[in-house]
Structure formats: C-alpha cells, structure tokens
C-alpha cells in the first residue's frame, strides 16, 4: 500500500483510539503513540523518497496513487509527493509530535482536545499529499471545525472573539479559493475532460484573460492563510488566544499551507498572471514584513509578539515567492520550514513559561534564566534563530531570500528588498528586548524560586524542535539542494514566458 495513505490512516486510527480511552492520561498516551508512529512514517517517507531519487527515478511526483471518486465530475482521490511536500510533511509531523508533548497537562475535556488537535493535523497532512485540488480543498477545510473548537474551548483571553474571527476570515479565504478552483476546473476543458488534477492542470496554458481573473482569487485565498497584509488580522488575535499546541500547529504549519498553496496552485498553474500581478502582492508582502516586525515591538504579551513576528516571517515567504527566481524561491521554502520549527518552539516555550508564571506580560516577569535555565536557554536559541544568527536555520533562509531577491536588476525589486531587509534589524530589537526583560536581570518574584525546570515531556517537545533548527543551520546544503530540484518545474513554468 502507498505509504502516503498511512499519513491519513494513522491520525484517523489515533482519533478512534482516543475515543475509547477513559481519562486524560489515556488520551494523551494514545495521542503520543499515534503521533510518534506518524513521525516515524514521515521519516521513512523522506528516506525512501530520496532513496528513489538517488536510484534515478526522476518523475516530479513520487508515490503516486489514484482512485476515481466522483466519476461524472472527474474528481479523484489522488496522492503523490514531490521534494517540497515530503519536507513539509516531516515538518508537520515534528510540530504535531512536539505539540502533543507540549499539551501534556491538558486535563479539561482532554479527550476532545486531543481528538480535535489530531483532526486538525489530519487536514494538514492530507493537504500536502493531495494532487487533486478537490481533495486538497477538502482537507484544507477539514481544519475549520477543530480549529474553532480548540481556540474557543481551550483558549485564553478573548477566546470566543478570536476563534470566531480566525474561523470566519479563513473561511472567507476559502470562499475565494472555491471560485478560483472552479475557474481552473472548467477552463481545463480546453485540453480534454475537465479535471482538478494538479499534474494535468500544469500541462495546460490557460488564456491570459482567464488567468488575470482567477489569479487574485487563488493568491489572496491562500494568502489570507499566509497572513498577507491587510488580511493578516486573524493571526495576532487567533494565535494569542489559542492553546499552546494549536498556536504551534497553526503558526508552524497551517500558515505554511498558505505559502505552499500560493506557490503550488496559484503561481504554478497561472504563471503569466503571476508575473503580471506580482508587483501588487510584492508591495503587500513587503508591508507585511515591515509592519509585522514593527507591530511586534509594541506588544507586551509574549504571544502577541510572536504572532506579529509570524506575520513578518510569513510575509517574507510570500515576498520571496513573488521574486520568482531560483534562489529566492528556494529561500522561501527553507523559510517555511525554518519558521515552522522556530515559531512552534517559541509558542511551546511561551506555553511552558505561562504555565509557571501565569502571566504572559513581559513587564511583569524577569530573571527567569536563574530559575528555569533549560527553558530560558531554549528561548534564547529560538530568539537567535528568529533574528537570523548564523549557525541556525533562520540565517540560511533569510540570506538565501535576500540574495535571491537582490538578483533582480531593476529598481523596484531592489528597493523592495532593501525595505524588507530592515526587518532584520527590527527583529533583533524585539527579540533582544524580550530576552533581556524576561530572562535576564533580577528575579522578579520570590515564588519564582519554586519553579520546577522543564519536565521530561517538555524537554522532549523542546529538543525535537531545536535539533532540526540546528541541523539546518549547520548543514543546509542537503535540504537546499533537494528543494532546488523540486522547485525546477515550478520555476521553469514561471520563467518560460520571459
């Protein structure tokens, strides 16, 4: 059987398993077992994928399988992965795995919590393996129910408001997507029967007028999930109200769905319109980057800081994609992975710190380095990765992006790049400010002395996220070169008409 189906079957079986557990202990063990299996499957998938590549199998997508679903509409359940998707799947399984351990202490309606969390993850895995746009959209929408419940029930702060805002804005995004997908579907009739299949759609060159009409729907539809300015406002509220694991999964992986979709569907299938309209979205993405970074400076709540920083970093992903050359797009995908790990680590640590101090306001904390050294050091590592310190993944991603985007000889792209680079400095400001106030200095409260340092499950969660950040930082060439191979078809199609 195709290994990709396992990535759907394991979470579904895990959910069924959790239904039969009795209390929160059983539920979390079941979830942990399931997601460990999922992580192992993802690792095996990556290894066997590149083993096949090495053996000389050159098809763009491997592990293909196809099953006709709605015959008259030519809708298939069709799966396959390329060099980008396998890495995204690995990223997703790492983040979910870490998320389970970061929410080890959830006791309130624990079974429902883990079921929703794993259903949310199922949507993500399904999205990355789907080749049929209908199935892809189905999995994308699958995240709506659990997301609303997770934030609404287990969240903090103005959770009802945030959950509603996030759900409705993302639904609005998928509303645009429906129009775009139907446009692709019906215009594919030019080359045979109508189809949702990505591979077949990518062989068609759509008429320019049609591309102009549908590209904004698809790009903005996915862009909302990728926090495209000015439609990013769900992100700060949503991420700060969500429970730890959901913030991790949402900022770490779901926002990458947006970037991935922009690249894989909008730009890949409608390349001429992408070329033509990139400048509009480039301006918006540049605003996202700078605005997000400045927004983070003013925040006092740790989660808000990180949410705004996510807006900035995800803006960088869209920015790099829209630069549309090999180097920058390569950087964009590395940034997706790097930011996914980094922001998940951040949110995990914030959750753990909040569990001890019961506040997320940085003005009310200080000197944590003395009492919880393990978590504090991890926080510093996440911070340094975020501001782009060499040796960690953030540096690799940002350098690649900026080198790539500066390759454009014209003024517009260069000015945009220069403006975007200022975010590096601003990022350093807000990261170092938090590190200084939160971790260093005098211990603020006496009760801090009684704080236990990281428990075993917290350590697992943190280590599993730090390891890949460091590996990518020190040895980026394998990831980078495999991504470049996978990007080739996309870049060829994008630049074919230049």
């Amino acid at each position, binding site marked *: 059987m195709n290994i990709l189906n396992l990535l759907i079957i394991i979470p579904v079986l895990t959910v069924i398993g959790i239904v039969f557990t009795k209390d929160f202990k059983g539920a979390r063990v079941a979830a942990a077992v399931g997601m460990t299996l999922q992580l192992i499957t993802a690792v095996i998938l990556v290894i066997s994928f590149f083993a096949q590549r090495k053996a000389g199998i050159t098809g763009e997508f491997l592990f293909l399988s196809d099953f006709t679903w709605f015959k*008259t509409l030519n809708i298939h359940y069709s799966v396959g992965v390329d060099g980008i998707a396998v890495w995204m799947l690995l990223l997703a399984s790492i983040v979910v795995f870490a998320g389970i351990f970061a929410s080890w202490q959830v006791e309130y309606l624990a079974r429902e919590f883990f079921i929703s969390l794993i259903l949310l993850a199922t949507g993500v895995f399904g999205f990355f393996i789907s080749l049929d746009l209908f199935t892809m959209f189905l999995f994308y*929408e699958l995240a709506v129910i659990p997301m609303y419940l997770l934030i609404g029930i287990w969240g903090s702060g103005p959770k*009802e408001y945030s959950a509603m805002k996030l759900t409705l804005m993302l639904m609005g995004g998928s*509303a645009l997507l429906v*129009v775009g997908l*139907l446009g692709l579907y*019906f215009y594919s009739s030019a080359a045979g029967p109508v189809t949702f299949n990505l591979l077949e759609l990518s062989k068609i060159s759509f008429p320019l007028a049609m591309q102009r*009409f549908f590209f904004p729907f698809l790009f903005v539809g996915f862009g909302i999930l990728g926090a495209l300015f000015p439609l990013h406002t769900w992100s700060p509220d949503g991420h700060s109200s969500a429970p730890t694991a959901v913030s991790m999964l949402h900022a770490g992986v779901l926002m990458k769905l947006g970037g991935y979709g922009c690249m894989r569907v909008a730009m890949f299938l409608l390349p001429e319109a992408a070329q033509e309209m990139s400048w509009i979205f480039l301006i918006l993405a540049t605003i996202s980057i700078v605005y997000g970074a400045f927004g983070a400076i003013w925040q006092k709540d740790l989660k808000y800081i990180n949410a705004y920083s996510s807006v900035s970093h995800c803006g960088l992903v869209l920015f790099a994609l829209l630069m549309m050359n090999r180097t920058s797009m390569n950087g964009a995908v590395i940034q997706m992975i790097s930011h996914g790990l980094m922001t998940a680590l951040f949110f995990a640590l914030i959750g753990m710190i909040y569990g001890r101090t019961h506040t997320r306001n940085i003005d009310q904390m200080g000197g944590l380095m003395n009492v919880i050294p393990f978590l504090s050091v991890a926080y510093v590592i996440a911070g340094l990765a975020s501001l782009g310190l060499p040796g960690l993944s953030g540096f690799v991603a940002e350098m690649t992006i900026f080198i790539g985007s500066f390759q454009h000889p014209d003024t517009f792209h260069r000015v945009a790049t220069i403006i975007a680079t200022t975010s590096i400095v601003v990022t350093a400001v807000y990261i170092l400010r938090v590190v200084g106030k939160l971790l260093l200095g005098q211990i603020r409260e006496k009760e801090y002395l009684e704080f236990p340092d990281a428990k075993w499950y917290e350590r697992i969660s943190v280590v599993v996220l730090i390891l890949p950040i460091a590996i990518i930082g020190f040895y980026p060439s394998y990831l980078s070169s495999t991504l470049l191979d996978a990007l080739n078809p996309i870049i060829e199609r994008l630049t074919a008409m230049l």
Partner: protein
Amino acid sequence: MDIASFNLMRNELILVGIVLILLIAEIFTKNENKHKLISMGTILFGVATLINFLPLPEGQLFGGSFQTTRITVFMKSILNMGGFIVFLQSFTWLKREENNGKIGEFFILIISTLIGMNFMISSGDFLMMYIGLELATIPMAALAAYEKFSEKSAEAGIKLILTSALSSGILLYGLSFIYGTTGSIYFADVVSNVGNNSLQTFGFVFFVAGMAFKISLVPFHLWTADVYEGAPVNVTAYLSVVSKGAAVFIFMIILYRVFSSITAVWEPLLYTLAVATMTIGNLFALRQENLKRFMAFSSIAQAGFILLGIMQGGQLGMTTVVYFMLIYVFTNLAAFGVISAISEQTGKENISDYTSLYKTNPKLSLILLLSMFSLAGIPPVAGFFGKFFLFTAAGAKGYYILVLIAVLNATVSLYYYLRVVKAMLIDKSDNPIATFKTPWPMRISLLICVAGIFFIGFASFIYQYISNISFGIN
C-alpha cells in the same frame, strides 16, 4: 390500460392504502389504545419507504398526465425517508395526553400531503400538478394548527392557509396565461409552443412567483418564520424538509421539461432570486434567538443555494440539486430532531437555553454540532459535498460572480451556525438543561440522520446513481 400499469403508481397507491388502514384502525381502537396507532403508522410507512426503493419500469398513465421515471421514483424516496424520520421523531410528542385523540389525524394528514407531493412530482400536465400541489398544501395548514389551543400554532395555521391560497392564486393566474397562449395544459404539448411571446413571459413570471412562495424564496418568504415558529416542532421539520423538497423538485422538473426553450428568461430571474434569497435569509438568521425561527431563515438561505443548481439547467444541475436535497433531508432533520427532543423534555427553544449542553447531553450536542457544520458546508460531513457541487453547477454556467456571492454567503452563514456551537460547547452556564435520556424512536431517527450525514458525502456511488437517472435541457 391493464392492471399491471397501475404498478407505475406504486408509491401513491401504497400511501393511499396506509391512509385507509389508519382510518379504519382508528375507528376500532379504544381510547386507551390509541397510542398503538403511532407504531402502526410508522411501521407501515417504513415498509412503504423500503418498497419504493425496489426498481420500477418507466412509463406513463392517463394519456401522459401521470409519468413515472427513475428520477421521480428517487425523488419520492427522498421525501419518504424524510417523512419516516419525522414520524420517528414525533413518537413521544404524539404520546402526550392532549394529542391522544388526534394521533390518526397526524398520520393521515402528513401522508395525504405526501400523496399530493408524489402526484405533483409525477405530473405530466398542469392540472395534475395543481391538484397535487393543493393536496400537499391544505393538510399542511391543518398540521401547522395541530396544537389548536396554542395561539401561535393557530396563527401559523391561518398564515399558512392564507399565503398558500394567495400563492396558488398567483400560480393559477400565471398558468392560465400559459394555457391561453399555448392551448394546452400537457407538458408535452406546451413545450413546443413556448416561445418568445410576451404574454407567455408574463404568465411564466407569475408561475415562478407562485412557486417561489412554496419554496419560500425572497421576497416571497414572509410567511416562513412565523409559521415555522408557531407550528409544532415536528411539523416544522416536515415543512422545512419534505414540503420544501417537493416544491423544489417540481419547480425544477417544470423548468427543465416545459420551459426549456426560454432559459434566457428564467436564468436572470433565478439569478436575482438566488442572490436575494441567500443574502436576506442569512442576514435575518444572524440575529434569531428562537431556534425554530433560526432554522426558518437558515432554510430560506439554503433555498437560495439550491437555485444555483437549478439554474444550471443541465443534467449536472438536476444531479446536484437532488443530491443536495438528499443530504439536506438528513442534515436538517438531525438538527430538528435535537431541537424536538429538547423542546419535548424541557420546553426550551432558544439558543441561549442550549448553553453548556455538551456537559449534560454530549451526544445530542455532538449531533447538533455535526448538522450545523453540515448546513454550513464544512467537511468531512456531507453538507460540504452538497454545497460544493451546487457551486460547481453554477460555475459550469460561467457564473463565477454568483459563485463568489454564494460562497461569501456561506461564510456569513458559518457565523450563525457557529453561534449554536458556541452556546453548546464554549459558553458556561449555571443551570444548563439537565441530563435526560432520549426516547428510543428519537435515537433511531438521529442515528439514521448521523449515518446519512457522514455517509452520503463520501459515497460517490449515490451521486453517480443520481447522475445516471437525471435529465437536463441539453
């Protein structure tokens, strides 16, 4: 005409038989045994539902007045299933003391409306269609006023009968013009004489207006909320699912069969009605507190979505509409089942009463949650497939702007469906509805609904079957 050809009217004849059996049975049951009529009626009706799934030859009777095709048989089956689920859900309500004397009536009236709907769907001329329509409407008013000592119920009954009379009048007025210009009431003859004639267009617009009353499209929807609120919950459920479904089916059949040559007239008309219905229905649903009114506006909005499918005009359009209605039956009846169970137990019908329902009645609130998400069109439940295919039908016509309006409306609708979910799962309450045990007929009905909500979406063979038996203009 030989005896065997009566087989074409199988479902109608069986239903008439059940009505007669119940009438006679009611005479011979003593007062204290009246409640046995409930099980008897339900079981007989369940058998009829099952029988209608058996294959049937296609053909026509009475010189084309009555037509049986595979799609009409399937449509009747959808309505039968809806009726059967409603009967299951009415068990405890009918067992109440004040209803003891009128159990037989309930079954007879509902089955009579079903007979009317069946004749309407199978009709081959306007006369048969009109008779069927009236038979489907007049008992409905009696049903709405079933709790005759409740003011609201009586009000619902009188409102329903008055608006029905008005809409029937409008419909007949329109039909008279069509008869006058074409010289026939038979669909087969009318179709060849329909053309670019302004008198005909005039008559056609009145016909659409008359049908719009029955399907409760905006601006002909004003009766809906009051009637839904006033009528007993189970009657409301029947009204919103079966009654509406039948009207949608016959509207679609006549548009496709009779008015196929003037698509240029009805497409813009339906376009406008669809936009108005979706938008107004949604905007009014946003602020409803009473769940029955809430479901009324929700069902108005859903009718707007259905128009997207009808408008397509081809085989795809009919398939998506029938498929959507099939899903809608299970989804809406699941919601009404929960509402009815709770209203039966506690008499509460407001969204705010449902606060913290998950704590006390987790199963009921999960079912309501599923049906809310199915109505909103969120996967993995079937509503997603139903809605997406309706959008596909509109997209096939190239109405991308209409699709956009529809999908944005679906987003707005998610807001109010989430309000119910929020009340049940998120909001905290000091005195939530106490835990209670749902009676077993209700359980069975909810189980059927949930199975339907999960199964129909993924089961592509159902879609395939509908697609094979559907017909379109081209």
